[in-house]
């Protein structure tokens, strides 16, 4: 708990815990369910996620200087803290395994189809485990460098793809059903709900950091990244082709052709995206390690980080036989898991807080 990070660093970290897989998979998925209304669905998902960021910020305020699970232990007892620690360790590990799978799926499908995925996973996890062992401060410092490069490249990318964009492809609006619109919004919310990472990051923030603002800024930056990607994908390809593409963001960049000397720029963006995926994986491995170590008050951190990394690697490699099975898992189990762990859990904690403070007031009053 000696390490301290700034509010901007934490917001950028939340952003990159969401954006790498968000820009890769959300456009195709949301356009698939919400059709022409996809960009409005993303906007609605963003608005709801701001509410979630506020809730998480309020919960975080209660224990700003102590680790989350230590605070739970004080409020609810040792057993509840240990069980919650195990649950959160499982959640962060599952998300890391899914992220690792998405990462290697992309590398295999787009860049290196002949290299065994296991080898790619081993190389990736070695780097990630090393980063987590160095601590959260190291991760956020690397992340902030990537953040500034990303902002510059994003504006450059928008400028370059400008000529392929046709805004009329976004029209007409409000064409689908309210159900499909809400489905799209909830799908976006599931991704943005990872703002609950603030529960873990909160105590690492410098004293008196604005926790609610940190969460809101993080979720708004991530949401904006996804929104821009969806709008650009739809304006470039229309909603039908966007639905068909697994990774529309990179296909958009591959359309850039300036004369015959500047083309196939997607590799520049893929390189940057690979960096952000390392950050995302490091954040989730850090979350798993943090929960496991503080739930059981362990002292040998390095060994457990290594073991958790190995477990994530094996889960990612052997849990799903093929891409179709993996997509089914993320849709049927992954999304409900995101809702349960990132939305229901902070809500339950919030309710417990309110009830317990009311109870203690009542006890004081009757005493």
């Amino acid at each position: 708990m000696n390490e301290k990070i700034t509010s901007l660093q934490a917001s950028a970290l939340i952003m990159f815990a969401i954006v790498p897989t968000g820009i890769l998979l959300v456009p195709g998925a949301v356009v698939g369910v919400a059709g022409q209304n996809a960009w409005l669905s993303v906007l609605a998902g963003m608005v709801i996620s701001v509410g979630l960021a506020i809730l998480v910020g309020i919960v975080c305020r209660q224990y700003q200087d102590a680790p989350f699970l230590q605070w739970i232990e004080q409020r609810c007892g040792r057993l509840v803290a240990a069980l919650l620690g195990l649950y959160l360790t499982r959640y962060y590990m599952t998300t890391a395994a899914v992220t690792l799978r998405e990462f290697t799926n992309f590398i295999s499908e787009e860049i290196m189809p002949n290299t065994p995925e296991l080898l790619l996973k081993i190389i990736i996890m070695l780097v990630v485990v090393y980063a987590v062992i160095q601590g959260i401060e190291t991760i956020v410092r690397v992340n902030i460098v990537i953040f500034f490069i990303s902002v510059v490249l994003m504006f450059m990318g928008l400028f370059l793809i400008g000529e392929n964009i046709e805004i009329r492809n976004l029209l007409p609006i409000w064409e689908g059903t309210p159900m499909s619109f809400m489905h799209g919004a909830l799908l976006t919310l599931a991704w943005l709900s990872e703002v609950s990472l603030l529960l873990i990051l909160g105590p690492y923030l410098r004293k008196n950091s604005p926790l609610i603002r940190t969460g809101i800024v993080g979720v708004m930056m991530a949401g904006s990244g996804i929104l821009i990607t969806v709008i650009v994908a739809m304006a470039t390809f229309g909603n039908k082709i966007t639905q068909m593409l697994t990774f529309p963001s990179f296909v958009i960049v591959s359309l850039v052709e300036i004369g015959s000397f500047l083309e196939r720029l997607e590799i520049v963006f893929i390189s940057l995206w690979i960096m952000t995926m390392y950050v995302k994986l490091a954040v989730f491995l850090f979350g798993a390690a943090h929960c496991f170590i503080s739930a059981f008050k362990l002292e040998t951190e390095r060994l457990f980080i290594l073991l958790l990394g190995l477990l994530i690697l094996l889960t990612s490699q052997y849990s799903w036989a093929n891409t179709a099975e993996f997509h089914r898992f993320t849709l049927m189990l992954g999304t409900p898991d995101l809702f349960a762990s990132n939305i229901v859990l902070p809500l339950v904690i919030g309710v417990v807080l309110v009830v317990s403070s009311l109870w203690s007031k009542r006890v004081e009053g009757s005493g």
Partner: protein
Amino acid sequence: MRKQGARLLASVMLCMLLTGCWDRTELNELGITAATSVDKIGDNWIVSYQLIIPSAISTLSGGGAGGISPITVHSTKARTIREAVAKSKLESPRQLYFAHNRILVVSERAARYGLSSLIDVYFRLPNSRETVSMLITEGSPVRILRQLMSIQPISGQGVQQIISNESRSYSLLPHVKLYKFAMNIVGDARAGVMPEILVSGSPNVDAVNQMGETNQPSRLKLGRLAVFKSDRFYGWFSQRESFGVSFLTDEVNQASISFNCGGGSDQQGGMNSAVTLTRSQTKVKPHIVDGHLQMEVHVKSAGMLEETVCTDNLQDPKVIKRMEGSIQKEINGIIMAAWEACKRDKVDVLGFAGAVHRKYPKQWKRMKQNWDQEFASADLKLTVDFKLERIGVSNKSFKSLEEPEGE
């Protein structure tokens, strides 16, 4: 110190493992494809590849004697497109590399069968480019790939430059990229277009020794405009009709238009003057009047006089006004030719379906069931506004100087 040295050595050694792993490919193991063609005969797809021979190109650019063709063409045949591509390994020492493929030529036969599987391959495989330029040809497309060009050693690249320059500075035929074609045929109108490429003249120029002459007996040339309903070829539009399609879809950048300047100076038959359109903009507004669809099209363009034999005073605003009227009439005729062709074939390659969908989303749900019929029975309300902004650096026509003085 020793520990740091060991770490540094370990890092360097680890880097050796990261040289591309199983996907390592040397440049001299690749067969770089500049053009591809697809044909369909019976149940088989015939895929042909125009491969670049880098050593022959360097000989040509270095002013060497040449003698070796800068490209080589071969074909493979199989039941699916990818199986045909895989079969190339039976005869090519190099692995085919499609990332620099410039053009994709489909035969009319393949286009009549349907291009869905071809488009699927392009969207599915990361190696292929969705920006490849699509062209169609009558007969065997391999003839297009074999034809050599005198100016551009790699003819695939040359054809791509032709269509790119033409669409930018002449606007008769559109430059159709694969992803745009795919978007159009799955769009509201479910129709698309593709320019024709053909070998004009005979015999084919497919040997380097034929390139020594100043005039080759045959050359690659753009032709008509192919029209597609869904992924299948439907028919041909003439170049004039195609030009009209360019106007109606707002794809005219620059163009050259011949016209009659009027005023009794019609010495050379119909057309005696020419303008270059320097800009043009088309706005399409659909209206539903008493349940009937009416498309309001307004074309606003401007240009510069480039040729005339009119003896009138070109600095007289009345003369300019009269010329503008003639050009407007000519543009009107070009657009109406395209409109009549679209109505004749009941094919909406003009994007009107999208405009109706955007403006009347509720009515569109009914109209889309029978769009081709609705489209064919629609009315076109066309207005053309042309401004002749410049007359060049000559105030009078040369013809006016030939007339005797004092008359």
